[in-house]
């Protein structure tokens, strides 16, 4: 068992002024995965991509209230974090196993609006994702290298256009661990996802927003620093063909140049699985 990060995304079709529950992308769910109740599950962040300004609302009986809960204005054409940092510091909302989140969006009456949530599991059975924290990166990081790929998104609101991390440039060193500290896009969408066997085949992700490249370029590193724990995904180049980058966006689709910022790590420096400690209410990710 071990840590996992999962970026779930979905869309509301023509929501207009009505707060409309989103349709979560195929293969994903707004129900929190079943975990050890003693270990933390966290909503690290959420963001939305609306062509027309609207609202994003996340509610559940297990959260603060089921009426308005975490409700935030979504400004038009800006997929930026709506809650919880992660610049400098952050506060994560605790989530609960099997809890079904209701994620609603309002926006334009003739468009597809999207939202994404980044969820962290301190200990998720059957996944054992590989993640490191900032001290491990500093101690074992060797070289900065960029993986640039081109993703052609689908127009259905699903995750799409997935390409392998080495699809454009196959320059990773064989059998070497790389930490993904963040990434950038040149085109606006909702979310950039990275899926790989090293992350338990779950999708890690960051906002697909070109105007906050200074934030997303080391998104996972900032999360790790903000929570003082391991949130930087690590993959081995042996798994490069199964490390897939894709994009979730609205009905306009688009072609995205995505740059993932990687740090080559010393061999054998990444623990097999980072597992969070038992969590009690009032604490934060560990």
């Amino acid at each position, binding site marked *: 068992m071990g840590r996992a990060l999962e970026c779930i995304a979905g869309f509301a079709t023509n929501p207009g002024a009505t707060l409309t529950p989103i349709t979560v992308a195929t*293969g994903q769910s707004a129900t929190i995965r079943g975990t050890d109740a003693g270990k933390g599950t966290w909503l690290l962040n959420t963001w939305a991509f609306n062509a027309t300004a609207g609202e994003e609302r996340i509610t559940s009986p297990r959260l603060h209230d089921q009426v308005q809960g975490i409700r935030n204005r979504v400004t038009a054409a800006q997929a930026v974090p709506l809650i919880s940092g992660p610049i400098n510091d952050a506060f994560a909302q605790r989530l609960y196993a099997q809890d079904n989140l209701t994620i609603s969006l309002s926006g334009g009456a003739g468009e597809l609006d999207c939202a994404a949530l980044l969820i962290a599991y301190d200990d998720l059975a059957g*996944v054992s994702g590989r993640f490191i924290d900032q001290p491990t990166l500093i101690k074992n990081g060797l070289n900065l290298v960029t993986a640039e790929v081109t993703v052609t998104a689908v127009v259905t609101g699903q995750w799409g256009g997935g390409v392998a991390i080495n699809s454009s440039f196959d320059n990773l060193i064989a059998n070497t661990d790389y930490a993904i500290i963040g990434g950038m896009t040149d085109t606006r969408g909702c979310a950039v996802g990275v899926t790989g*066997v090293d*992350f338990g*085949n779950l999708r890690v992700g960051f906002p697909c927003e*070109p105007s906050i490249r200074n934030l997303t370029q080391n998104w996972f590193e900032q999360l790790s620093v903000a929570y003082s724990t391991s949130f930087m995904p690590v993959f081995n180049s*042996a798994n490069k063909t199964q490390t897939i980058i894709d994009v979730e966006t609205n009905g306009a689709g688009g072609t995205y140049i995505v740059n993932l910022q990687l740090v080559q790590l010393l061999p054998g420096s990444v623990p097999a*699985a980072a597992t969070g400690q038992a969590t009690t209410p009032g604490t934060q990710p560990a």
Partner: protein
Amino acid sequence: MAAIVEDDYPKGHPARCDYDPASPEAREWARINIHPRGERDFPVGHPKAVDTPGNTNTTVWVAGVDPKHTELEAFSGRTPAQVEGLRAVYAERAALAQPTPVRKPIDAHAFNSAYQAKCGQLGVCELSIQQYNELLTTLGQQA
């Protein structure tokens, strides 16, 4: 070599020994440096002064947009013609784009251990794509 004449104050400055408030130089100095409503943030004629024609004080700096060329596409700087052309190219590519296949969760540690074991068994440092996919399939995953 002619000596360099360096004035202590510019012409028209009140501190000059030959100061004459009625002189053209003094009037110009006063126009630039004295403001009836108090100290100016920028001298008269400064590109950022509010009373300089064509100043950029009301320019909106939208992310990714060159305010002097708002007709260009944000972030890429492409002309409308280029954007139109790329849209056509994208339309062709979009028709071929597919949703990303859904994968089952996998235990990363178990997979990587199996990978190393397979490499050891075959006596290689790295598996071929075929061997890799066979391993994934063996572990019940989509190749």
